[in-house]
């Protein structure tokens, strides 16, 4: 019995290995893709596009998912380096870990492009072969602030006394960079625009619609009439909040859930904002439920990063290289690492886009 089990075990491993791991020994360029966590929609889209690009370019791609664990990502990097992989696209777990990864890659004379989570200035200073190919998280928050500003400019009656915004905030997993930077930036952005922001309630819903819905159910009961906006860190939670508001009939016209009687662009009494521009979110916007979202361009980021890695692998990279039609920045901006003159030529900023009533149809697939 026991020996059978061991045998079975070994066979499963062998089978899995030979099925999925058959490596062709060709002279194709090899690119490693270290991906933070495929459970996140943005990251999954990013990885999917990298796969498509690798296929098209005839590149052998080694794509690994670290499941949000920086230690795992470090181990995966070391494994690929020991296999001789030199060039990488990386969606890191934390900014603070990027320098160490860059140093390990530089030891083997390789290079990498970092997306989604920005690398530190120190990481880019490790060598000229390290790049930012991303849209800093805080920009998503700033764009949310801009959309909110537009909303209250158009609907000043919805604003509280003394330009007060009474917000309910649904946050992503606490401590996650996207949670922290998006939240900080939207609050700061609103302050900069002269609003007084009163956070009526905030809590994490771990990116999930169902948790968001639960929280929102409780909040509607507790704070009815005391809030004028719902800000969330992603579309999943935004849609959970929308469902909750609809269920509670917290809408313009409780008799007809599809009527936007006050003409503010949403059938709900208050606007709800997300980030990601997922397809379900766009559908919700088309029904005047979700008010607006922000597109983090997974295709743009992954294409930029991949083209940089490919150019390095083929020895075609030169300073000022144009990746996915983007040129590197030339003047330092506000946000690290694109704020440091020494590494500015290694920073490719992929624009975030506000997705509102005016333009959402462009993004529907």
């Amino acid at each position, binding site marked *: *019995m*026991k020996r059978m*089990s*061991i045998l*079975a*075990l*070994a066979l*499963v*491993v*062998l089978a*899995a*290995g*030979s099925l*999925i*791991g058959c*490596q062709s020994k060709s002279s194709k360029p090899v690119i490693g893709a270290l991906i933070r966590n*495929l459970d996140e929609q943005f990251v999954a889209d990013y990885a999917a596009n990298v796969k498509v690009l690798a296929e098209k370019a005839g590149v052998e791609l*080694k794509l*690994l*998912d*670290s*499941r*949000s*664990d*920086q*230690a795992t990502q*470090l*181990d*995966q990097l*070391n*494994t690929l*380096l*020991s*296999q001789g992989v030199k060039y990488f696209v990386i969606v890191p*777990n*934390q*900014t*603070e*870990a990027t*320098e*160490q990864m860059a140093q390990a890659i530089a030891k083997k004379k390789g290079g990498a492009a970092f997306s989604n989570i920005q690398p530190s200035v120190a990481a880019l200073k490790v060598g000229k072969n390290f790049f930012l190919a991303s849209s800093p998280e805080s920009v998503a928050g700033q764009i949310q602030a801009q959309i909110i500003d537009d909303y209250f400019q158009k609907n000043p009656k919805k604003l509280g006394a003394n330009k007060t915004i009474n917000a309910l905030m649904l946050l992503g*997993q*606490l*401590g*996650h*960079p996207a*949670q*922290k930077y998006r939240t900080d930036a939207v609050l700061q952005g609103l302050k900069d625009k002269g609003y007084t922001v009163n956070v009526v309630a905030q809590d994490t819903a771990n990116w999930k619609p169902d948790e968001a819905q639960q929280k929102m159910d409780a909040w509607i009961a507790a704070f009815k009439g005391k809030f004028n906006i719902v800000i969330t860190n992603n579309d999943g939670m935004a849609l959970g909040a929308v469902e909750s508001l609809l269920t509670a009939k917290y809408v313009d016209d409780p008799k007809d859930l599809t009527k936007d009687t006050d003409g503010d662009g949403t059938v709900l009494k208050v606007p709800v904002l997300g980030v990601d521009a997922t397809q379900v979110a766009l559908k919700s916007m088309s029904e005047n439920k979700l008010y607006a979202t922000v597109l983090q361009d997974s295709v743009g980021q992954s294409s930029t990063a991949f083209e940089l890695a490919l150019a390095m692998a083929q020895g075609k990279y030169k300073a000022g290289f144009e990746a996915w039609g983007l040129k590197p920045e030339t003047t330092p901006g506000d946000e690290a690492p694109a704020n440091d003159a020494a590494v500015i030529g290694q920073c490719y900023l992929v624009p975030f886009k506000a997705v509102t009533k005016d333009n959402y149809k462009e993004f529907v697939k």
Partner: protein
Amino acid sequence: MAASSTVTAQAPARGLRAFLSKNTNIVTFVVLALALGALTGGRAFGLDSIQNLLIAESVRAFAALGVGMIIITRGIDLSIGYVVCLVASVSASFAQTPDYAAALYAGKDFVILVPIAAGLMTGALCGLVNGLLVAYGKLPAFIATLGTLSIARGLQLIYTKAAVVGSLKQPFKNISQGSLGPVPYLAIYVAFAAFVVWVLLRHTRRGTNFYAIGGNPVAARVSGINVERELVMVYLYAGVLYGIAGVLQAGRLGLANALTANGMELDAIAAVTVGGVSQTGGVGTMGGMIVGVLTLGIINYGMTYLGVDSYYQLLMKGVIIIVAVFMDMNKNARR
């Protein structure tokens, strides 16, 4: 691998069979290692590969030694991941470079002993709380440690305000990242800790007590063992080991945040289970724990090396744990 082959070469056939059936954990490890070697034509066992494996598994090994002892006493500890996370954060907060503006104690330069001591004390304290709840509070270990899991997570977020504790001093990082010739420091620390655990389990009265309590708590009490005190001690020792794990993890990553070490309890419990530490209590050795860690390590490493999709990696890990427990149950049922 080398050790087992010398044994098999010298032992007569019957001895060999006895050895194999007694040490299914070692057999599993060897079979997996050979499978990986065969699949990659030996390439997976270069020097840097072995270094990578040792570095990757070291931190988990401390957690495994800790929870392994707890399971021997018929307990369990679900709080490991977040306790290690809390320890890493506390430790890292005292090791940040003083000129880093976002440091928790910006402008303060602590000697290197402070982050180490703070981490170990945090770990010990968490272990002590677990132990008191289980031994004197009479809470089921499953529930008590589920509670401390959440408390540790809460404390971590409060302490760090959910920010990443980064920009750690190089001397602190060197504790984890350095190596003595080709041997990573981390592996040396594990060897030392494993030796201490071995001495404790094999050559002290307390170790014997742990096995007695796990084997039969009523009999242990009747025979005069202070069961409560011993249980507090086992959780305390485990806490110290988690403390070491946390400090080293912070140094290794050069940072700590709310996601550091998440899920480590499952890896550690799985590893010791694969290594032959029985959930029924009273069974298990230091060697088994380490073999278990290496077995899961080689599975992780091998699948990464072969480029197996990470979703399949999770699935495979689950299958292997279930098979290991199944074998363990068979073995213990027959005794």
